[in-house]
């Protein structure tokens, strides 16, 4: 039997209206009450249906291309190292061949080669991306880590964080781009991890950052700050 009060809480929970303490208390009640758990599931489904009352719209086709491009980028970025090493076995031979060709083609126009290189870079998103690996510094847990894929041309990037526990109440993690041409780190926004300490977030720094030397994550006041104040938890270069 589920009381009216439990039903009230279940409805508020399904709509995400409980505060953190109420949420935790209700979740522990849920674990002990299968009937209540089923009710929440059904109320959640009903709440999900509310989305269908929004005026129907379609996103532009370019959005799908953008998303599929990011996924392809990420997939390329996680190729296991052994495979990657094996695939580069031809490099010494390629270099030797390239040198031979180069010697034989002294008359080749350097401008033309540079133009070709630029075309290759423009065609392959991976060539336009720089990866930064962020390592923990105290007081972050030793196994916390983050990777940033940064595209200077687009002035945007994706950060993936793992093993970083959620900050205490009233605090937020904030991402910073350390740029050679700016005196202070540039804010790239607040980043929030889930209950597993994981986040994958797309970001854009608030100012143009053309010469990023490093990315860092600091612990700041809730909502973020315009200029870094708190301790650095993760930092890394390319």
């Amino acid at each position, binding site marked *: 039997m589920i009381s*009216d009060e439990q*039903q*009230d809480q*279940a*409805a*508020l929970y*399904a*709509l*995400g*209206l409980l*505060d953190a303490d109420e949420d935790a208390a209700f979740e522990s009640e849920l674990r002990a009450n299968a009937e209540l758990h089923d009710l929440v*599931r*059904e*109320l*959640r*489904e*009903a*709440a*999900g*249906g*509310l*989305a*269908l*009352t*929004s*005026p*129907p*719209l*379609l*996103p*532009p086709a370019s*959005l*799908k291309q*953008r*998303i*599929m491009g*990011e*996924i*392809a980028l*990420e*997939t390329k970025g996680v190729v296991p190292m052994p495979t990657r090493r094996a695939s580069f076995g031809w490099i010494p031979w390629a270099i030797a061949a390239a040198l031979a060709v180069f010697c034989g083609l002294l008359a080749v126009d350097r401008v033309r080669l540079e133009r070709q290189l630029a075309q290759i870079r423009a065609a392959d998103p991976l060539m336009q991306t720089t990866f930064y690996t962020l390592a923990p510094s105290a007081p972050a847990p030793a196994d916390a880590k983050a990777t940033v894929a940064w595209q200077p041309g687009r002035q945007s990037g*994706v950060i*993936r964080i793992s093993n970083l526990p959620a900050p205490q109440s009233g605090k937020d993690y904030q991402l910073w781009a350390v740029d050679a041409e700016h005196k202070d780190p540039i*804010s790239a*926004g*607040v980043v*929030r991890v889930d209950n*597993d300490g*994981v986040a*994958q*977030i*797309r970001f*854009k720094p*608030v100012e143009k950052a053309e010469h990023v030397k490093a990315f860092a994550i600091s612990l700041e006041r809730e*909502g*973020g*700050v*315009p200029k870094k104040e708190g301790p650095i938890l993760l930092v890394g270069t390319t």
Partner: protein
Amino acid sequence: MIARIGRRDQSAFSALYDRLSGPLYSLAMKMLGDPSEAQDALQDVFLQIWSRATTYDPEQSSVFSWTVLLTRSRVIDRLRARGRRSRVVVASTEETPTGAPDASIVESAADTAEKNDEVARVRNVLTNLPSEQREAIELAFFEHLSHHEIAARLGQPLGTVKARIRRGLLKLRQRLNKL
């Protein structure tokens, strides 16, 4: 499909996008009112689906509800950030809202949606809720007002607002179950 996405199947992901991007984008637009921000939110959501597909638990919710909750959560993050930007710190880099969405897109999406009988029936159920219940639920769901804020907005006691939300959602559940 989610299991295939968890195994990094891009074609399954593409199919899921085709199925859900319309309703999720519509939700983001209704809450944010800005196409550029709604698209960024949707991008975040689908990247999250891609990276967290293995954590999806069918015991907790259907795929649709899971993705709706993800979308709502990302949109709420953006609404909070928008509020903070306006009242605190960072020089605003936010683009001016671009106004009403392109009419052809609206019509095309509307045509698609109306052809789908099931969607039409669900919409009918939702729009036929008693108005005071629907209003309380909509303020909670789309504007992310707390029950205290809803009570203040509607000038009603907190208990009344909680009861309206509860009754409305239970009615929705009951009617949707009959479909």
